[in-house]
């Protein structure tokens, strides 16, 4: 009696979550990094919230991108190192399903956590509470897309020396539309004008990525596994 796709998906997500919570410090590190990087800007620039507010969307998004990159390396690395990735690929479940499950679980513990923490960072940068909803929604869409871009990059760079640097080099240029649309949406929300246009673009990039990236990430894994 073989195991159905949905059941396998949930089992893999559960596996990833159990593993992540066994090492809680690894979950917190990117979040702390997010907070630290955001703090650097007021320290380097200005104390005045009104001035910070002008650059805050860019700062917020850049910090979010960089912190997400930190955790992306771990998507496949641990499994590749101890041989369990091979076992997963031989489990009878499609490799795409495995990749989707792992990426979803990864977003839950990294991207989603980032979105939850973002109001704290936003307050430190002087972003008004009225803009929070748009900001958090844009971050949610952006981090989902980034998790997928990162899955492709991580799949390509498993086991390489300085793989995490190469991962950043690969992912960041591809992530520039996210930065542009996400920061624009947040900025519009801050200034009170409609962020709908930017959000639509962000959402369409997200949907586009979610549709095609699983295939690319699976292909990347196959190249590495062979």
């Amino acid at each position: 009696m073989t195991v159905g796709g949905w059941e396998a998906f949930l089992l893999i997500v559960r596996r990833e979550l159990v593993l992540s919570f066994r090492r809680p410090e690894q979950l917190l590190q990117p979040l702390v990094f997010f907070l630290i990087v955001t703090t650097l800007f007021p320290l380097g620039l200005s104390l005045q919230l009104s001035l910070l507010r002008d650059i805050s969307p860019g700062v917020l998004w850049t910090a979010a991108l960089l912190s997400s990159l930190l955790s992306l390396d771990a998507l496949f690395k641990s499994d590749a190192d101890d041989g369990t990735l091979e076992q997963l690929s031989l489990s009878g479940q499609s490799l795409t399903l495995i990749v989707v499950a792992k990426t979803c679980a990864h977003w839950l513990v990294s991207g989603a956590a980032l979105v939850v923490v973002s109001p704290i960072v936003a307050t430190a940068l002087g972003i008004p509470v009225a803009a929070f909803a748009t900001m958090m929604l844009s971050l949610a869409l952006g981090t989902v897309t980034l998790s997928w871009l990162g899955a492709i990059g991580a799949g390509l760079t498993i086991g390489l020396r300085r793989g995490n640097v190469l991962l950043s080099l690969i992912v960041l240029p591809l992530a520039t539309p996210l930065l542009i649309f996400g920061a624009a949406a947040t900025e519009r929300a801050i200034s009170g004008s409609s962020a709908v246009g930017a959000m639509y673009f962000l959402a369409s990039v997200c949907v586009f990525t979610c549709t095609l990236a699983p295939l690319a990430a699976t292909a990347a894994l196959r190249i590495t596994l062979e």
Partner: protein
Amino acid sequence: MWTWFYKLASPPHVFRVAAAFVPWLLGLAALALGYGLIDGLAIAPLDYQQGDAFRMIYVHVPSALLSLTIYTVMAAASAVALIWRIKVGHAVAAASAPIGASFTLAALVTGSLWGRPMWGTYWAWDPRLTSELILLFLYVGVMSLRSAFEDPARGDRAAALLAVVGVVNVPIVHFSVVWWNSLHQGATVVRLGAPKMPGSMLWPLLAMWLGFMLFYGAVLCMRLQGELLNRERQALWVREAIKS
């Protein structure tokens, strides 16, 4: 009828074809570039607004066009190599990548030099320049990925996948950059390019573009020969080719 097409998968055949093409491509490129440069730099009339500085267009625009074309060629060759497992595709992609990166760099440098008389600074976040910069990063990513692998076959496949992923993203990135630029438009119109092109300006530009394409073709063939020799160095035909 399609045998010529199937033969393109054979390294020794491609090697011979490339070797044969090189002198023709170089010759034609020299002609086109010669005409373009002389006409564009010396003969074409001055732009009333920009003066002599606009002549940078004759190098900048073809370079930018080439950088995009080469990326597309690289991605297409990579796709062929990945889907049908034709190794020559990897050789073409590997040979093209540094050429494309060089053209991207040339576009950036000429754009910067053009910007100096135009805006008074060496850099401005013009949409085309910004897109070119990101394109340069994409090229560097592909080249770095290929060289990071110890097994060259795996490196080829990984770089090929990245090239295909990149080519899908290039239009998205360009669109988002243009959109972003339109949001933050300052008082000065930050656009590198002459909006209207009378014939006397257009012909040298087209000639330069054609010349650059032919030049790319020639350099590609030369590099391709080297790549094929390197990749197939265990094969019999390579030893024959070296002896002759």
